Every structure is written in structure tokens, then in C-alpha cells.
């Protein structure tokens, strides 16, 4: 790269015509992907405009006429929107509060395993659920919590009353959170473990010389060493708070559990795709997307101020 005469990436300082003539073949690789991005990423992005326009189906996906904030006013008055909003936040926040420390602890414990084969085995097993289709995960959840499943078998063995977990609204959040941790625990440690292998071993040596035991090494060397990763993942998670596991919820919720299970994305699905209220559902979805964008930007800003670690 150094041999290049032209300054790197300085548009304007070089002759664009000559550059294109020399590199047109390289740029030609981009033609198909860019067309793809325009059609399948940017057109839907601009398609959000139907949140402000009337659209009732048809080829012109940008709608028929402007209606301003009508659909926004509509959903802001809709109690089922507020229920979904509340559920989205409470499911995500509770999930994050449990998952984040558990994953970090698991990563630290994995890091303490000294027998390479055993460590590898635990990792391999714990990553597995990440690769299983949500349909199967949801099916498994239903089997495990069903009336004749192992959990109810344990309850009745202890003399308790069987519980129809899947049909009771109060049980949805625990099922959602526990199954999420079950599925994502192992895979969630990968980036931490990658960061841990990057820590300079001399730091551990120095800590040992200072008389630090393993626990103190973990606190004073390992955790500071992976702090940038912790912050990055936290930012991503906070940015994702407005999203929830749509696929899992739509496979597991029932009208009897909407009270705690219906989230914004499932509401968008029911309103828009099942109900055909495209514009209304788009307005709700856009609201979710914009809040998500604001959250991730804010979290990034705060962490840059506080820890100097940030995504951008």
C-alpha cells in the first residue's frame, strides 16, 4: 500500500477520471451488491414513509396521500400499544439484568478452567443451543413446561399442584428470560473469552509477584483487561432494549398471555400483516426503530465520556 503515489482515501486530491479508468474492474464488483442494497435495504428504509401516508396495499409501496401524524396519534391513544411498550421494556430490561452478569461470570469461570479438553467440551456444549432453530427451541420449551413435562413432574412429586405454565401470563416473563439465558449463555461468552486471550500474560506474572491470588487476579487483571468488551456489549444491549426476541415470542405467546407477552414487534405483526393496517403498523415499528437508534447513540456517548470505550 505504501508504494501508492496517491494519498490514501483523499477524494478530490486525485484525478477521479484516471482513478476510475485504472480501477474500474475493482469497482465493478460493487455493482450487484449496491443494487441489492438499494432495493432491499434502502427502499424499505424509505418505505417507512407510509407511517405518514395512507397505504392500503398495491404496487406503490410509498403510499397514496399524506396524512401527517394521524397514525401516531392513533397508536398513542391505543392501550394495547402501551401494554406492548411496557412489556417490551420490562422483558428486555429484566432479561438484560439477569443475562449480563450471568454471562460475564460464566466467561470468568470458563477462563479459570485449566484443563484444555474439559474447557473445550464445556464451551462446545454451551454454544450448541445458539445454532438450533427458534421453532425447535420454542417446541422444546413447550414440552419441558407442559403439564406432563419434567418440571410439572417435579412439582407433583413434591406434592404441589401442576401449573399450566404456557397459558399463564404471570409465567411468561420467567419462561422468556430463563430460556433466553439457556440458549445464549455459551455463545455470549465468546467475545469475552477472545478478549481474555488478548490480555498480556506479564500482567498476571506481575500480579502473582505482588502476591495476588487467582480471585484477586481475576478482579484486578482479567476484568480491567476485558472492560472495553464489556462496555461495547453493554452498549449494544442497551441499544437493543427496544427489540425483543420476536420469533420466540410469536411462537410462544397466546391470547391468554398477551398481558405480559405482547411486545411492539408482535403487535406490529398482528396489526400490519395479519390485520392489513400497513400504515398504522409501520408507524408503531418506526417509533420502535427511532427510540432504538436514540438509545444506542446515547449509550455510546455516555460510555465514551465515562470510559473512553465506544463503538464509534
Amino acid at each position: 500500500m505504501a508504494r501508492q503515489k496517491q494519498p490514501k482515501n483523499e477524494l478530490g486530491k486525485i484525478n477521479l477520471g484516471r482513478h476510475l479508468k485504472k480501477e474500474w474492474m475493482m469497482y465493478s464488483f460493487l455493482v450487484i451488491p449496491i443494487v441489492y442494497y438499494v432495493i432491499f435495504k434502502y427502499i424499505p428504509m424509505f418505505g417507512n414513509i407510509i407511517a405518514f401516508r395512507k397505504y392500503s396495499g398495491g404496487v406503490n409501496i410509498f403510499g397514496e396521500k399524506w396524512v401527517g401524524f394521524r397514525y401516531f396519534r392513533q397508536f398513542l391513544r391505543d392501550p394495547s400499544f402501551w401494554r406492548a411498550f411496557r412489556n417490551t421494556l420490562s422483558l428486555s430490561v429484566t432479561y438484560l439484568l439477569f443475562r449480563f452478569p450471568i454471562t460475564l461470570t460464566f466467561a470468568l469461570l470458563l477462563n479459570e478452567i485449566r484443563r484444555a479438553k474439559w474447557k473445550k467440551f464445556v464451551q462446545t456444549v454451551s454454544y450448541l443451543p445458539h445454532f438450533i432453530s427458534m421453532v425447535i427451541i420454542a417446541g422444546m420449551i413447550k414440552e419441558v413446561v407442559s403439564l406432563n413435562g419434567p418440571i410439572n413432574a417435579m412439582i407433583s412429586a413434591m406434592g404441589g399442584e401442576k401449573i399450566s405454565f404456557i397459558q399463564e401470563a404471570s409465567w411468561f416473563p420467567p419462561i422468556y428470560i430463563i430460556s433466553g439465558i439457556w440458549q445464549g449463555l455459551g455463545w455470549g461468552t465468546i467475545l469475552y473469552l477472545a478478549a481474555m486471550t488478548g490480555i498480556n500474560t506479564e500482567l498476571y506474572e506481575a500480579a502473582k509477584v505482588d502476591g495476588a491470588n487467582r480471585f484477586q487476579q481475576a478482579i484486578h487483571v482479567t476484568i480491567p483487561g476485558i472492560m472495553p468488551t464489556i462496555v461495547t456489549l453493554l452498549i449494544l444491549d442497551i441499544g437493543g432494549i427496544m427489540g425483543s426476541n420476536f420469533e420466540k415470542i410469536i411462537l410462544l405467546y397466546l391470547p391468554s398471555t398477551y398481558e405480559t407477552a405482547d411486545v411492539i414487534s408482535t403487535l406490529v405483526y398482528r396489526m400490519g400483516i395479519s390485520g392489513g393496517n400497513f400504515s398504522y403498523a409501520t408507524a408503531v415499528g418506526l417509533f420502535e426503530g427511532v427510540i432504538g437508534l436514540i438509545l444506542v447513540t446515547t449509550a455510546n456517548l455516555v460510555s465514551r465520556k465515562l470510559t473512553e470505550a465506544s463503538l464509534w
Partner: protein
Amino acid sequence: MAGKNADLAMSGPKVKESTGYKIFVVINTIIMIAIVFFTLYPFVYLVAQSFSSERAIYAGEVSFFPVEFTTQTYNVILSKPDFFLYYKNTIVYSVVGTLISLFGSAILAYPLSKNRLVLNKFFTPFVVFTMFFAGGMIPNYVLIAQALHMRDTMWAIIIPGAISTYNVLIMKSFFAGLPNELEEAASIDGMNAYGIFVKIIIPLSKPILASMFLFYIVGIWNNWFGPFLYLDTKDKWPVALYLRQIIMGATGTQEIGAGSDEASQIAANVRSCCMVLTAAPIICVYPFVQKYFVQGMMIGSVKG
């Protein structure tokens, strides 16, 4: 265990581990065994159910091992042509989709990895921006179903999600890490950019291509929501969508030919059996390819 520990521990001088640490090792091992157990248990339970009699399942007798062992459920499911048809669809979509995705991602990531291409100053943000803001579910749906008329074709589930920007960025950082000398030498020998890409870059990129291949194929193999939205004809369904229908209990049992007479209830053994059959290929292949998944994630994390 403890004696071995000391040698493996970070090449330091042999330090005698304290009693406290030995206790920690024991506790840690117990925690790990518990995690392995709880991770695998639901799979064990499904397999046990799939080989058990319906009576035993509904009596709540199945916990770890099949009760009243039978292969009847498998025989019934595998003797029907349906299941193979859906499986064949899954395989076709996965293979075709993955090849398209790999090709699209590679030809995008390659030029983006070259700093000398000054127009990347425009193209890179153009691509990356889509990770932060996207058209939601409805704009995508109306584009694909209403405007492009892809409904009820396999393209509706393959093309719209073909290129994952995240995967493109991983490939881009891999390409950027390749030594430039080979490309320069080939260029001096008169090889053009296409030749370099096919004859030099692709062979050098086998590890990352393997990772990407797996990420994409698992994604398509497991995909049920895209097919659920866009595929109306049942004969075109992938097995994941068929499975959804079974799990949701939407079909009558007579259609599958096993189980009780209750129309809307599909027997648990049939559900388990279908889940096992769908997950089996991934679970069987997974231990051997797991390292490529991890490797892909690592490359991605080094240079976000």
C-alpha cells in the same frame, strides 16, 4: 487435578495452590457439570419422548430415557412422503441461498477492503448505515409481497436477506489482512482484478469462507418466519415451517397419521420426533464445524 493445574498455569514458576483455590476448582467443576447438564437436558428429553409410547408421555413417566421404547413414531413419519418433501425444500433453499449469500458478500467485501479505492469513502458508510437503521417489518413485507411479486417463490426467502452487513464487515477485515504482495505480483504478471479475485483471494480465504458458509447455511436452515410470511403453497415449505405448524398444533393429527383422535392436538411423541429429525443434521455436524463458527466471530471481534 490440582497438580496438573500448576504446570499449565501461565508458564509461571511452580506455585503451590492454596486450599482456597482447590475448593474453588471443585466448585467450579460442579458448576460446569451443572451447566452442561442443563444445556443438554432438553435435547435428551426430546429424544426420550420421541422413542416413548404416547401413553407413557401423557402419564408423565418420561424423564431421561424412553419409556415403553418404540420406533413406531419414526416409522410413521418417515413412511410419509411429506417429511422428505419439506426436507428436500430446506436443502434446496439452504444450498442455493448460501451460495448466493457467499458470492454477494465476497464481491462486496473485497473492494471495500481496499483502501486505495477512494470511492469507498462513500460506499462503506452506505453499507454500514443499514446496520443502525432499517426498514421495519412492514415496509419489507410490502416491498417483497406487493411490489416485487416474489410471494410464493423461493426467492422471497433467499434474496431479501442474502447479504448480511455484519458478515460483510467480518470478510472485509479478513481480506484487508491478506498480504498484498501476491496480488501485486499477479497484477504485474498481467492478471486482472477478476483473475486475482478468483485465483488468489478465494483460495487464500478458505477459512473465512468456511465460517461464512456455516453462518449463512444455519440461518437459512433454521428460517421459518420468512417462509411463513411468503410461502403460501404448502409443497414449497421448508421443514422448519412444517415443524412450526406441528408445534402450534394447527393441523389435525390425521394428517400426520399418528396420535389420538383429538383433532387439534398432535401427540407429543410426534412433535418430539419431528423436532429431533429437524435438529439432527445440525447437531451431528456441529461438533466438527464448531471451530469455524468461533473463528468467524473472532475475526469479527478483532477489527469491528
